[in-house]
């Protein structure tokens, strides 16, 4: 089963809405409680002071996601660098998806964005698994300049989901700014599923696309991770460190 990482700034009171908890019920969940520290503060110093409080909160959250049934667990990390922590824990727990928690009631409509160079197959199979036999409507969304090719790939994905018994609609935005079109389409949906893209100049300047969508749409965003990135970080973990070689002095 796919594992979803739910990072929460636990000591800043960040929490998950009931709607997201219900949506993620059938999945394996790792709640990642993190606390970002300024560089003046050694992480260990913060741990001594805050560990107990954070652990209490995380235990409760993990229980909501089904820790008692064994489908949820939690990690607590003190860090200077949020992104680095997300990537490491996602790779270590083999989480294919991470959630940006937002506010939502019960999720009845899911917007699934297939725009751009994302792993459509993995997104589609994740949505199939997530929705299962629940009564959740799925809207496949694609913004493109090439209407014909866009329509074809939307239809292909829709057929796959339809064959699995899901209620599918499609929405194509042609020659519109992709991000704005996505945020517009999100207004009548409760949550968004989208793919993570490789970092680009644009994302360096304006921030990650996924975070901007989350900020503008208010609701939760489930991000299917860019697996190439994940593979690299797994390799980085397993690569023997050069220091192992330097031992013979």
């Amino acid at each position, binding site marked *: 089963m796919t594992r979803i990482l739910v990072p929460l700034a636990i000591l800043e009171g960040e929490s998950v809405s009931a709607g997201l908890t219900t949506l993620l019920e059938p999945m394996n969940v790792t709640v990642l409680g993190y*606390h*970002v*520290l*300024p*560089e*003046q*503060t*050694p*992480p*260990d*110093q*913060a*741990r*001594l*002071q*805050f*560990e107990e409080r*954070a*652990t209490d909160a995380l235990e409760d959250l993990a229980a909501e996601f089904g820790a008692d049934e064994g489908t949820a667990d939690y*990690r*607590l*990390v*003190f*860090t*200077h*660098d949020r992104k*680095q*922590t997300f990537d*490491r824990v996602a790779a270590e727990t083999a989480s294919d998806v991470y959630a940006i928690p937002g506010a939502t009631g019960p999720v009845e409509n899911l917007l699934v964005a297939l725009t751009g160079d994302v792993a459509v197959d993995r997104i589609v199979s994740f949505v199939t698994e997530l929705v299962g036999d629940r009564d959740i409507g799925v809207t496949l969304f694609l913004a493109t300049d090439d209407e014909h090719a866009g329509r074809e790939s939307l239809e292909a994905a829709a057929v796959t989901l339809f064959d699995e018994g899901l209620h599918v609609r499609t929405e194509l935005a042609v020659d519109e700014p992709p991000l704005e079109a996505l945020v517009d389409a999100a207004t009548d949906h409760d949550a968004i599923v989208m793919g993570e893209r490789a970092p680009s100049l644009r994302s360096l300047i304006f921030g990650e696309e996924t975070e901007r969508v989350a900020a503008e749409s208010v609701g939760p965003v489930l991000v299917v991770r860019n697996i190439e990135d994940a593979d690299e970080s797994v390799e980085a*973990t397993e690569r023997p*460190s*050069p*220091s*192992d070689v*330097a*031992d013979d*002095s």
Partner: protein
Amino acid sequence: MGDTPPSAEGTNIEGESPQVEPTIETDEATITDDAELERTIGLTGGLAIGIGTMIGAGIFVFPGLAAGNAGPAAAASFAIGAVVALLVALPASELATAMPKSGGGYYFISRGLGTLAGAVVGLSLWFGLVFATAFYLVGFGFYAVDTLAELGIAVGNGLVIPIALLFGAGFTVLNVTGTENAAKLQNGIVALLLSILVVFLGYGGLDAAGIVGEPSAPEQFAPFGTLPILTTAALVFTSYLGFAQVATVAGEMKDPGRNLPLAMVGSVLVVGVLYVVTIFVSTSALGSERLAELGETAMVEVGRHYLGAAGAFAIVFGGLLATMSSANASVLSTSRSIYAVSRDALLPQRASRINLRYGTPHVALGMAGGPILVLTATGQVQLLAEVASFLHLIMYGLICVALIALRRNEPDWYDPDFRVPGYPIVPVLGALASFALIGFMQPASQLIGVAIMLVTAGWYFYYARDVTLKGKL
């Protein structure tokens, strides 16, 4: 890496015991029972801490003072300092890879040699960093006044200390309230400084070697004999204190087995070469007498000599950045060293409290900032530098002794990724050289240093006599 860390037990006078938990160290995080601590500082960050702390003093403050004491042979003084620093950096690297924890030298010594030595070193390091920071701030004050002079506002040296105090207070407040990550800024500043220096030294070096520019009459290399070379080495050793600051963030370094030794040894090598070349170039440019007259900001005139007003401005600007980054990096190290001793119950544990609003250790930063301001107010550049060196050199010597003690009877947990080449000669020489350098300082500095050590020992016997920190040896 050590998965069975040294034991710690006992309580201090307030009934607090050392807060030590078993941990598992990986290249990317420290894993405790319930939490993980991300390692976020890479090799570049480590080098920036080391070089950034050191470069301000050696290049921008000392050349005038050192040339006045030893003549052109001041270059040899800096070279001696580099050799001593290297002899300590190697053993310190081994210990740091065996114990990649916050606290650096204090941690190694308390685990290797026991609580008394640890307490004296840990508390002395606090004061040593305070003296060093005050010294950097006074240097900064001189550069600030010179910057104003370059801009056509002559305010005179009377404002050096007030400016230093103002900025010292400013750094402390910024460190308590600032949650922006300044690490990237620090990396950028160090890169910029290195570029300024390489251009300047490259041109100056060609000139000094007689390839470009007008030939100048060579000066006698050691006009005052050999003893001043050694006393100057003791004075300028303050410009090599930064490599041990790398060890204070050992708990936050990625891949510590590789990056810690590279950052410590690498930063000593880089600044050592730059220092020697700088002295060579500046004594060739102006002669040591003229440098001595110019004092703390002599380098500005050297810059003017080679590259005109642009050169002077580049050096003034570089000096401001460098002394500022040294001061700021030391304030951070000071608060980390206070945390390390208070975690082990050698100081009240409330010293390492973090405030909720900013997530910063305000008590420890205050305990760093307060004494720094008092010392800055004295304005005694040489004395501040020497006392800082004295207290650090004691720690450096003991680091070498701790390494020998651990190696002679290796505990199970002792498994460093990096082992000192040339053991036992390197640590023995490192210890001897560190203690010997202290012998060449002014009597006043030695007295203050010994007094501080006695006070810290007294504190240990009063406050934390029952605390045991020594590892399972």
